[in-house]
């Protein structure tokens, strides 16, 4: 039970990061970025290539991965999203499906379908919390996630540019009038969300053990989306908390299914649990746990 909780928090941390990136882009451009998770996977492959194949220190690989994630998202924003201007949001979303497919196929071309391993940054023993082994990477990542989350929150609330980013979703004209360039806001939100997804991938790598192209596939993406929805689609802290809640829910469901010996009767029960949460949120509290009800 406690084991499940801890696994859930670790897994949920990744959902939270992905959800954060999704909401950031959604707030900024009203687009659901289907390539969000795949940007992270590509970055993870870069880290693998640098660290495992070229024996560079882990931290170099990690930094390059974050930069690559940000770069892919920013290039996509500059080359595709911005020229599309006020085109139907659906078409922009389809363009992100194109990006998803492109990244996935490039991973396959370069690395093939065989599983890869990224060695953890720190060898040695982790902690045993209530008989669960938590690896040092996971501990460090949890810390990093907390620091980055707090830093991002501070940046968004305390700087003019950050406030502009937050306000741009509500009233783009007003933001432009106070002197914040909307194109910078858009580039920033995409860039940060790309970096967040790289971070999420690095964060999840030790739990995955090995990874292949497209490893953060539809089920993980749905879990992150559910987290974003649970958080209210527009609240950044809500998205993060929602992601963790979904991770815990998923782990608890798995735990229940296994402990009751139901895994043959109901395979993949956690995907049903997530689907149920989405329906319940929509029916009962569409504004999410931390979202505010929008004015009619």
């Amino acid at each position, binding site marked *: 039970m406690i084991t499940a909780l801890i696994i859930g928090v670790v897994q949920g941390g990744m959902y939270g990061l992905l959800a954060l990136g999704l909401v950031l882009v959604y707030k900024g451009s009203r687009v*659901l970025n289907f390539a969000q998770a795949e940007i992270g996977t590509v970055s993870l492959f870069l880290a693998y290539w640098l660290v495992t194949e070229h024996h560079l220190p882990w931290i170099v690989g990690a930094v390059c991965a974050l930069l690559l994630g940000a770069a892919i998202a920013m290039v996509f924003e500059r080359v595709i999203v911005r020229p*599309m201007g006020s085109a139907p949001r659906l*078409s922009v979303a389809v363009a992100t499906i194109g990006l998803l497919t492109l990244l996935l196929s490039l991973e396959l071309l370069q690395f093939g379908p065989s599983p890869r391993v990224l060695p953890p940054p720190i060898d040695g023993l982790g902690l045993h919390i209530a008989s669960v082994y938590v690896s040092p990477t996971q501990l460090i990542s949890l810390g990093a996630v907390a620091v980055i989350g707090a830093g991002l929150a501070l940046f968004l609330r305390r700087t003019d540019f950050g406030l502009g980013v937050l306000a741009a979703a509500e009233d783009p004209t007003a933001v432009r009038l106070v002197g914040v360039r909307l194109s910078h806001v858009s580039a920033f939100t995409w860039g940060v969300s790309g970096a967040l997804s790289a971070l999420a991938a690095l964060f999840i790598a030790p739990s995955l053990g090995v990874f292949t192209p497209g490893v953060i596939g539809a089920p993980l993406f749905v879990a992150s989306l559910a987290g974003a929805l649970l958080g209210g689609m527009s609240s950044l802290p809500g998205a993060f908390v929602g992601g963790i809640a979904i991770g815990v829910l998923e782990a608890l469901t798995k735990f229940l299914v296994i402990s009751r010996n139901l895994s043959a009767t109901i*395979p993949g029960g956690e995907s049903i649990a997530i689907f149920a949460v989405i329906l319940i949120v929509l029916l009962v509290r569409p504004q999410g746990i931390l979202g505010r009800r929008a004015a009619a």
Partner: protein
Amino acid sequence: MTALATSGSGSDANTPQPQSPRAALQALWNSVMTPRRANIALWAVLLAALPPITERAMPHLFTSGKLQTLDVAACFAVAALALNVLVGYAGQMSLGHAAFMGVGAFTSGLIVGRYGLSMAVGVPAAALFGGIVALLLGIPALRLRGLYLAITTIAFGVALQLSILRIPWISGGNAGVVLPRRVAGNLQLIDNADWLAVLLVVLLVVWLLDTNVMRSKVGRAFRAIREDEGVAQSFAVNVVTYKLTAFVISGALAGVAGALYGHTIGQANSDPFSYELSLQLIIMVVVGGLGSRSGVVAAAFFFQVFPAVMPAWFNGYQVPIGAALLMYTVARHPDGLAGALREARERREMRRMRGGAGDDDDEDIEERGRLPKLPALPRPSTLPPRPEVAGGTVLSARNVSVRFGGLQAVDDVSLDVPRGRIVGLIGPNGAGKTTLFNALSGHIRPQRGEITFMGQDVSDLAPHRRAALGMSRSFQLIGLAKSMTVLDNMLLAQHVLGRYDIGSALAYLPRTARVERELTERAHQAIAALGFERFTDTPVRSLSHGQQRIVELGCLLVTDPELLMLDEPSAGMSPGAAENLAVRLRELRDEQARTVLLIEHNIPLVLDVCDEIYVLNSGAVLASGPTETIARRPEVIGAYFGEAVPA
């Protein structure tokens, strides 16, 4: 057959009675076999005959494997058409259409494979089940605007693929269900060419259902919703119901596509019905052209057939190249390739209109600044005679308050609009006039207050219900579906007069056709009254702002409403037209006995036409009364021409 068909053109059920029995039979045949139906029958025969004949004539060219590729392509074409109803027409995003296909395949698999019934039972059951699932998902997800449907469907897709379809008592574990092509008993359509014939005929039927929906009020409602939900509501379209309708139709058709796909490949577990397939379907619909039937079908065949015939050196790179092409295509042409073609055609059309003979013809409205006489159409036969209202008050509001966060936008406003009067609503910018309008028309729910319309408490009614009662409103920004033509907007405006249900729209029953003919006639009358005949098939967005205003006024009047609510009608009109507007409004009151509630900044116009005036300031009624008294009130003069505005 063709000769009969051509002679049958234009024959209606109510043509004069013929004398001889032979002529009577001829007339009956003509009314049954209209040119359109003859055309359809010809297509059905062609599609059904072509594959078996071609296969037998050229057995080496069409191997079973190649035919199977075409079979699968036909199934995907049905699935893409299904998704197109939802995404292309109604503008709602589903990322779980592969899951609906899975529902269909497993439904038919259990019925045909396990219980040995015919596909004639299995495939319709797949449609039914697909529709039911769509209804259950749509009810929570479609009440809300935005991406909620996309999120719900993607989660449903994952849950279905990873869990529900793997539950042993549904699927028999990972092996999945067997789907024989059983027609009846031991008769099976094993040959892939015969099966292709069946699939093409089903594709034709789906195509026709789709066509029927799109030429009825249902299709117009879909397109209006895709364009602007607020506009759709003010034309009495129940947005939630129609979004649900689109989703249910789409889910049912996807169920059919899935069942057919299952019967094509013969055995199915949950693997093919993946998130990736859902994404591929979205790609087909968007690249094909968001709402273009032929584009979508072409895209479905292309994506299936192209990889099969691709040169070998291409191998390995087709996916990244395809993905890059997809991004390029949507970035250059967000409305898809068919949309790009459509735009090019519109541009040519406009050039032709501009450059053509219509030079002096086109200028009369713009240049001479005249507003045409507004249409006075007879009361529609489907509506009861104009009801009497107690006390002659059409609309009344009592103590209405609207608050946005900390801002009291409308503060305890009461107002009465007597029948046959023009009532003005004036006040400085930000006084709350439009917010009050939104509260009256139901686009905003006020925190407090009661609104009575035609003697009925409408405070809790949605905007489309109020519109259906006879409340017609315009918007500051033009309240029309801009990408639809003038004629389509006139038809959309008559949504409430389209008295037939969704089933009759799908089948396009004779009754439906008759109602649609009446609506079209009425629309043409209104367009003719405005003098806009040459713009009948022009998309509204290619008209000038002033022309759009005129079309909007026509749309408001075409249903013979009880109350017209106009939000700054003179905005964007040339001075001549604005001056002319006063004449037209007076005509509405004096000749057509209409009731008007008017927001205007053009004070001379207000003083000229209004019988009564309400002055709003900071959300509250500052003054109200007959025009003559209001015009002299010092606080009114202060609010309007006070310190802030230099004289």
